[in-house]
């Protein structure tokens, strides 16, 4: 009887731990996968990885994006994707990305705070 009770308690306890672990993972999943994001960021380096790189016509530095805030990055990439934010090169990049890709990229970039 006692053994059954303690076995039940153990099962419940394990379930509770599993549930909280799952909840923690679910929060991360709501953000994105930094590893997958890092692979996608390879493309960004062509402009954003060259120190002092200038946008042409008009001329201004392309922004530093490493360490930028997650939610802002998601919003910016989504706006480029939909065309709400107008930049030909970034529109083309945004169009090639799924919403999950965007979350992954934002997760990686926001993680490399200086």
């Amino acid at each position, binding site marked *: 009887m006692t053994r059954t009770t303690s076995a039940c308690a153990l099962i419940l306890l394990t379930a509770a731990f599993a549930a909280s672990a799952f909840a923690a993972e679910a929060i991360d999943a709501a953000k994105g996968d930094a590893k997958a994001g890092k692979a996608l960021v390879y493309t960004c380096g062509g402009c954003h*990885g060259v120190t002092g790189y200038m946008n042409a016509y008009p001329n201004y530095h392309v922004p530093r994006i490493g360490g930028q805030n997650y939610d802002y990055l998601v*919003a910016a990439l989504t706006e480029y994707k939909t065309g709400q934010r107008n930049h030909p090169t970034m529109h083309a990049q945004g169009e090639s990305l799924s919403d999950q890709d965007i979350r992954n990229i934002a997760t990686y970039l926001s993680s490399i705070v200086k």
Partner: protein
Amino acid sequence: MKFAPLLLVASLGMSAAHAQPIPLEKVKEKAATCAACHGADGNSDTPAQSQYPRLAGQYHDYLARALHEYKSGGRKNPIMAGMAAPLSDTEIDALSRYFAAMPSKLDDLSRHEQGD
């Protein structure tokens, strides 16, 4: 950090060919409005501020470009449209340089290495 105000004065001086530079104290007064969302240090560091970009250490000409676009409506954001509308070209330049000179958490990706 110690030299940031000096750099700012120097850079303001260089851009002053077409306009009188704005005294640093005046720039700080203007920048106080930005702090509510972008933080006093320009780093938008609280979780609630994650929706706003970090400005500290961003390229000054990119920041100026953004403010001009908000002002013209080329870049649409209801909050920033209201903020940028009253700014003169000289004020945009001064504010951009002020935030660009702050200690930064931003980085370009020049040290980015592909792979695990």
